[in-house]
């Protein structure tokens, strides 16, 4: 992993399109500005992880769910 030191107002560039700027620094937190193209979603790590976990749980539950087959599926005896 690359570790860099930056001061307030300084920026890191990731690839050609993503810029991360340190806006302000306090003793306990850092305020960061992210400029990224619209197709690149930017989220706090813990928010993204919650969605990942919810998606995995939904997929797990769907394997077991006692629900009718999708329209267009072959009848069960033909599978």
């Amino acid at each position, binding site marked *: 992993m690359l570790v860099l030191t930056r001061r307030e107002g300084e920026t890191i560039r990731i690839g050609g399109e993503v810029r991360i700027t340190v806006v302000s620094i306090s003793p306990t937190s850092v305020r960061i500005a992210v400029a990224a193209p*619209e*197709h690149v*979603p930017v*989220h706090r790590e813990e*928010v*993204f992880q*919650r*969605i*990942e*976990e*919810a*998606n*995995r*749980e*939904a*997929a797990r*539950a*769907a*394997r*077991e*769910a*006692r*629900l*009718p*087959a*999708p*329209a*267009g*599926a*072959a009848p069960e005896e*033909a*599978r």
Partner: protein
Amino acid sequence: MSEPVRIRSARFGEIEAQAAELIEFPGLPGFPAARRFLVRRHDQGDGLGWLLCADDPELAFVVASPWTFVPDYAPEVAPRWLRALGAERAEELEWLALATVDETGVALNLAAPLLIHPRTRRGMQVILDGDYPLRERVLPPPQIESKPQK
């Protein structure tokens, strides 16, 4: 116009579809390689449907229109989502919520719905700003039992 394709599903076998029915996602959180999906309603009307991944026979989700269960759901649409999906107006988009169905009932993920543009066939899962529930309980257990056909 469109060619027939066969979706392989570990649970349901082969499902016939048209290539033009498939929706292209840039992956989903937790499933970055899952790109092409097919939305199919159940063969019984219960407000739920299947989202089947054409790239992974093991991957399927239960989905629902959020308004079927939560009529006052009114999230804001970010302009960048419209642009990413090739939409001009929010009204062009279809919304699906991922459902978790288990012995405790049905819960909808209202915090991160799927947006789909029916014309461009592009979709994405968005993470809403604000306090939307990740697991909104919408049905208790007994109502998810599939009813025998008359």
